[in-house]
């Protein structure tokens, strides 16, 4: 007893709503996870910028000691 679904459009009867709901829940959870990870990655990027700035300052300080600390503009 095989019934192949005719078209990509879901039949919007009762059953369709529930099935759609279940798959929506799955997708939403997945996207929420991606969003949380995105926040993490943003934080890592920010910290790397800071660390890069510190490293550059350090380098300038070594190259020209006593010439006074020059604020190195971080690369945009």
């Amino acid at each position, binding site marked *: 007893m095989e019934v192949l679904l005719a078209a*990509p459009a879901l039949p919007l009867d009762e*059953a369709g709503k529930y*099935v759609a709901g*279940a798959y929506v*829940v799955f997708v939403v*959870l997945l996207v929420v996870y991606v969003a949380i*990870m995105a926040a993490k990655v943003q934080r890592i990027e920010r910290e790397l910028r*800071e660390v890069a700035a510190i490293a550059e300052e*350090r380098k300038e300080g070594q190259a020209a000691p006593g010439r006074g600390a020059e604020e190195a503009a971080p690369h945009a």
Partner: protein
Amino acid sequence: MYGKGLKPLSIATVSMLAVSLSLVFFYAPLDADQGFVQKIFYVHVPLAVVALFGFMAGGVFAILHLRSNDRKWDAYSYVAIHISVIFGVAVLITGAIWAKASWGHWWVWDEPTLVSFLIVFLLYATYYPFRYAIEDRDRQARYASVFAVTAGAFVPLNFMAVRMAESLVHPRTFATAEGGMPGEMMLTFLVSLAAMALLYTTLVKFELTAKSASGQVKRLRRALDAPVSGGSSRIAPEVS
């Protein structure tokens, strides 16, 4: 290097998910009893199976951590359990939707598999407050591993016990009018299972890579004698 292979893995995951969804909606036959609603089965059950194996994997990683004292295994164990808990939320919600659609109630107690899963989920949900309650990092990692091992051993035992408590078995999942699952359904199920397993692996790798990157930043900061930022979690183990 945790990020290595992440790109091909995610591509494989996406492809497999696409194939699985296509099979579900264009290929798999309609169930004799439940009709269209049965399609939820292809997202609910693979999520559940993968989550359960994830929990047990967390136990295995915990054993490795206890034996080698290498902290990376604790990170693996934590992430395995963490992603499984997230999958678990999806399992319970999709299970409730399926229950509502099939039997009219958002929750039914005579579904031994769903009930067992709830109990396992409740146990693993305590993993976070448990870790949080132990301040010393070393001890936290060790005790968390003990927890993960105990809980991992618990999973199969629990399923068996709950199943025995019910005479009804998870009905109609693997049956149609002819009785027994037709080949097309089985194929679709297996592909969905593979897709979820790949998704799980990708997410675990993704999480570990992010942790590793954080760890490398900390390492850089320490090397430069720069102040360490205060943003580290109390419970999530660090990866370096």
